[in-house]
C-alpha cells in the first residue's frame, strides 16, 4: 500500500533534540574559543615542563644561546651557519620550481598528443612519469648524486652536490607536476575543445589559447602543494654533503652535542613554507567562493 506523505504526521511533532545549538554565539563564542585555546596550550606547556626529561629537552633542543650560535655559525670551530645554509635551500627550490613548471608541462603535453608519429615520445613520457613517481626521492638523489660523478662525463660529472640535488628534485617533481597538469587539462570540458576547433583553430592554438589558460587556473592549488613539499625535500640534498640548513644543523649537533640547531632549521623551513601554505589555502577558498557564486 502506498504511504501518502503527511498521513502519519502527528499534529505537533517534537522538534527538540538532545543537542542545543546557539549555546556559544556572538561574544560567548569568542570567550569560549579563547578559553579552550588557553586550556589546551596550557596543558601542552605543562606536559613539556613537568615531564621527567623536560629540563634536558629544553637544554638540548630549545637552548636560546645554542640556537643563536648555530644560526650564525662559527668558522673558528668549523661550524656552518644554518642561516646561510637555508639560502642554499632557497636557491635550490627557486631554480627547481621554474624547471619543474616547464619540464612538467612539456611531459604532460607530450603524453596528451594523439599523432601516430609521436608514439615513441608518448611512450617515453608515460614511462618517465611511471618510473619517477615510483622511486623514493632519496634514492633518486643517491643515484644521481653518486652515479653522475662516477660516469666521468666531463662537466656533467664535476658539479657540486647542490646541483645534483637540484637535478634529482627536478627529475622527480617534473613527473608529479606533469600529472597535475594532465589532470587540469582533462578537467576542461570537451565542449571547449569542440568550440575552439569549430572556429578553425589548430590543435596547438586551441591548447595554448583555450585549454591551458583554463587548466592552469584549476591546477594552481595542487601545484603549490607540490611546491611546498619540494621546498621541504631540499633538505634531503644534505645526504650528498651539500651544506644547506639541515646539513649545517647536523654538523652543529655532532660538534657541540646540542640539537638546538635542528629546531632552528625547522623554524627557518616553517618561515618559508607557511606563507606559501597560507597563500594556497587562500586561493582554494577564493576559488570555492567563486564557484559557489556561479551556481
Amino acid at each position: 500500500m502506498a504511504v501518502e506523505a503527511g498521513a502519519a504526521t502527528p499534529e505537533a511533532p517534537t522538534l527538540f533534540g538532545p543537542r542545543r545549538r546557539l549555546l556559544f554565539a556572538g561574544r560567548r563564542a569568542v570567550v569560549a574559543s579563547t578559553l579552550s585555546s588557553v586550556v589546551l596550550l596550557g596543558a601542552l606547556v605543562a606536559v613539556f615542563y613537568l615531564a621527567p626529561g623536560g629540563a634536558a629537552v629544553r637544554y638540548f633542543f630549545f637552548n636560546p644561546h645554542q640556537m643563536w650560535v648555530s644560526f650564525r655559525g662559527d668558522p673558528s670551530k668549523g661550524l656552518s651557519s644554518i642561516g646561510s645554509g637555508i639560502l642554499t635551500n632557497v636557491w635550490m627550490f627557486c631554480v627547481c620550481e621554474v624547471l619543474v613548471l616547464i619540464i612538467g608541462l612539456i611531459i604532460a603535453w607530450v603524453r596528451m598528443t594523439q599523432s601516430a608519429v609521436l608514439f615513441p615520445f608518448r611512450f617515453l613520457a608515460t614511462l618517465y612519469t611511471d618510473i619517477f613517481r615510483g622511486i623514493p626521492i632519496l634514492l633518486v638523489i643517491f643515484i644521481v648524486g653518486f652515479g653522475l660523478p662516477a660516469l666521468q662525463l666531463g662537466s656533467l660529472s664535476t658539479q657540486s652536490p647542490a646541483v645534483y640535488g637540484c637535478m634529482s628534485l627536478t627529475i622527480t617533481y617534473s613527473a608529479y607536476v606533469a600529472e597535475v597538469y594532465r589532470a587540469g587539462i582533462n578537467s576542461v570540458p570537451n565542449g571547449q575543445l569542440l568550440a575552439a576547433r569549430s572556429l578553425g583553430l589548430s590543435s596547438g592554438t586551441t591548447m595554448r589559447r583555450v585549454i591551458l589558460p583554463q587548466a592552469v587556473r584549476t591546477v594552481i592549488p595542487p601545484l603549490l602543494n607540490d611546491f611546498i613539499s619540494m621546498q621541504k625535500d631540499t633538505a634531503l640534498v644534505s645526504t650528498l654533503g651539500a651544506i644547506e640548513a639541515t646539513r649545517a644543523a647536523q654538523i652543529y649537533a655532532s660538534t657541540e652535542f646540542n640539537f638546538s640547531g635542528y629546531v632552528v632549521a625547522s623554524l627557518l623551513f616553517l618561515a618559508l613554507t607557511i606563507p606559501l601554505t597560507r597563500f594556497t589555502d587562500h586561493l582554494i577558498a577564493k576559488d570555492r567562493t567563486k564557484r559557489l557564486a556561479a551556481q
Partner: protein
Amino acid sequence: MSNVVLRLSSISKRFGSTTVLSDVSLDLHRHEVVCLIGASGSGKSTLLRCANLLETIDGGDITLFGQSLRDPRVDPDLVRRHIGMVFQSFNLFPHLSVLDNIVLGPVHALGRKRAEVVDEAMALLERIGLSDRADDFPDRLSGGQQQRVAIVRSLAMQPALLLLDEVTSALDPTLVGEVLDLLRDLAAGGTTMLIATHEMAFAKDVAHQVVFLNQGVIVEQGTPEQIFSHATHEATRTFLERA
C-alpha cells in the same frame, strides 16, 4: 547546381557496432535554411558533427562547394573556418571576455588584425543589443545572452554556412524567444543554416526544407507544409503528434 554549399551523399557513421547514421543524403543551398527534426538520439547532432569534420564518416561523401572533404589533402582546420557551429551548451570560453570570445577565431585562425576585428565584433554585439557587455565575462550573462554571443562568435568568422545543434534546448523557456528571434533575423538576411531543433513552430516558420531523422535514417524530407501537414510516413506522424 552550383549554388549547393554543402552536400551529404549517402553518408554513414558507426560508433563501434551501433550505426548512428545510415545512407543520409542532403543538399544545403546558398541562402537556404534546413531544419533537422527527430527524437533525441536520432542522429541529428552526429550529422552536424560529421559535416564539420568533428567526426569522421565511415561511408559516403561530404562536399563543400563541390570539393570532397574526404580528400586526404583537405585540411580540417581550413574547412571549419568556412563552417560556423553553435552548440546546445553555448561553449563560450569562460576565461575570455565576451569581446575576446568573438575576436579569438578571426585573429588566431585567420590571422587578421585585432583592431579591425574588434570593430566588426562590436558591430555584431550592437546587432544583438549586447555592446555594453563586451568586457563582461560569459558567466555574468544569462543563458539566452550567452547563446546569442556564441552565434555571433561563429558569425565573426564570416562562414559560408552555420550549423546549429539544438541551440535552445539548454535554455529556460523564457529565454528561448530571444535566440529564435536572432535566428529568424539571420534567416531573413539570407544566412545559410542547417538547424537541428525541437522547436517545431520555429521550424515550420523559418525552414525552407524540413528533414525528419529517425534512428539514423532520413525518413522524410520536404517543405514545412509537406512535413507538418501532409506527412506520408507513419513514423513522422507519430513523432509530430508527440512533439
